[in-house]
């Protein structure tokens, strides 16, 4: 395992190598060399299975972290490739030529985060949503609760509570929910 990481470090500018558990490692790589790294991992290192592609929204840092989860069936090792992209210029190289299901993930990311993958087939077709007219819903600045109440209304009589506050009121009613 370490040999692989050394090899990768020799050829690529990988950093933030993080061994999460036996059988799973994550590393970070720049946006431009990510596709070459992934191709290399697939063709040379035996990471032939793409588990998924997903995205984490770090709104406070202004970045999207794309996660490509690759699996090697021979060494039973999972490698997570993290790629940071700018939240404002959300664009990433498409890997739809490497795996057949990759374009589906990219289509989903396009819809849910608005990330562009130039060249990816059927990218702008509706995936889950239909007639969506807001900012992409999985972005953290999109408040789904507010949107839901505005768009779908609210039935009188229904209210939802924060469990912590509710339980405080239940358990310590006399003290007005004050625990101490």
């Amino acid at each position, binding site marked *: 395992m370490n040999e692989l990481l050394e090899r990768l470090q020799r050829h690529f500018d990988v950093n933030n190598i993080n061994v999460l558990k036996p059988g799973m490692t994550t590393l970070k790589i720049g946006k431009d060399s990510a596709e070459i790294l992934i191709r290399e991992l697939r063709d040379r290192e035996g990471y032939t299975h793409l588990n998924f592609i997903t995205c984490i929204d770090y709104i406070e840092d202004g970045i999207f972290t794309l996660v490509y989860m690759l699996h090697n069936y021979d060494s039973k090792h999972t490698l997570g490739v993290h790629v940071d992209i700018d939240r404002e210029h959300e664009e990433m190289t498409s890997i739809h030529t490497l795996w057949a299901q990759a374009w589906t993930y990219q289509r989903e990311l396009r819809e849910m985060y608005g990330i562009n993958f130039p060249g990816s087939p059927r990218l702008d077709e509706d995936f*889950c*949503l*239909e*007639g*969506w*007219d*807001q900012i992409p*819903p999985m972005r953290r600045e*999109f408040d*789904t*609760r507010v*949107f*839901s*109440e505005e*768009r*779908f*209304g*609210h*039935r009188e*009589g*229904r209210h*939802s509570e924060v469990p912590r506050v509710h339980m405080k009121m239940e358990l310590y009613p006399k003290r007005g929910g004050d625990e101490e």
Partner: protein
Amino acid sequence: MIKTLGTEDTLENAGLTDEEQQLFSNARPRAYEPYPIKAVEDFANWARANSLWILAFGTGCGAIELRPLMTARFDANRFGVAGRPTPRQSSVFIIGGYASVKTLKRIIRSYEQMQGPKFVIALGICPINGGMYFDSYNTVNRFDQYIPVDLYITGCMPRPEVLVAGIMELQNKIKAGRCDGANRYVENFDWYKANQKKVIKNWDMPDYNW
């Protein structure tokens, strides 16, 4: 057959292209009157209640308990309930829980193609007030704003026993002539349409799917 009525009584079908407007009817739906003789109406209601054909459209997770309901253990066939694969022939629409916006469009389409008298059963808490998806951006919170519901069956999932009880309750309601959801839909047609168009942003179907 294309029905074209007088201008004051037609629908706009604004969502359709000119070419498609020629293909779809723009007539308004009309409420149906009960038979003038009460005995005939009661007899008709009895027949309707004892022959409930459910549209085979699993709109949500509630569909999973419809299979045990229809198969050997609970066998709803005993009560005159049968599955029907096409909306034209079915009289009961079971909404299986939450309705996402994309499905809602298909629900409306299927519902309008059903021939009256038609009845809607909604399963679970989600169609009532959103349930645990009350804050989801893609599921509607109050289903009865879009389609009139005749009967709610509670539970997540409603067990097959509850479904059987619900179907019997629906039968009683039909026999008593109190299932007028389809007529409500027609009478408040503009209100329902406005609600539907508020959530369905790409309205590219006729205003009423004949």
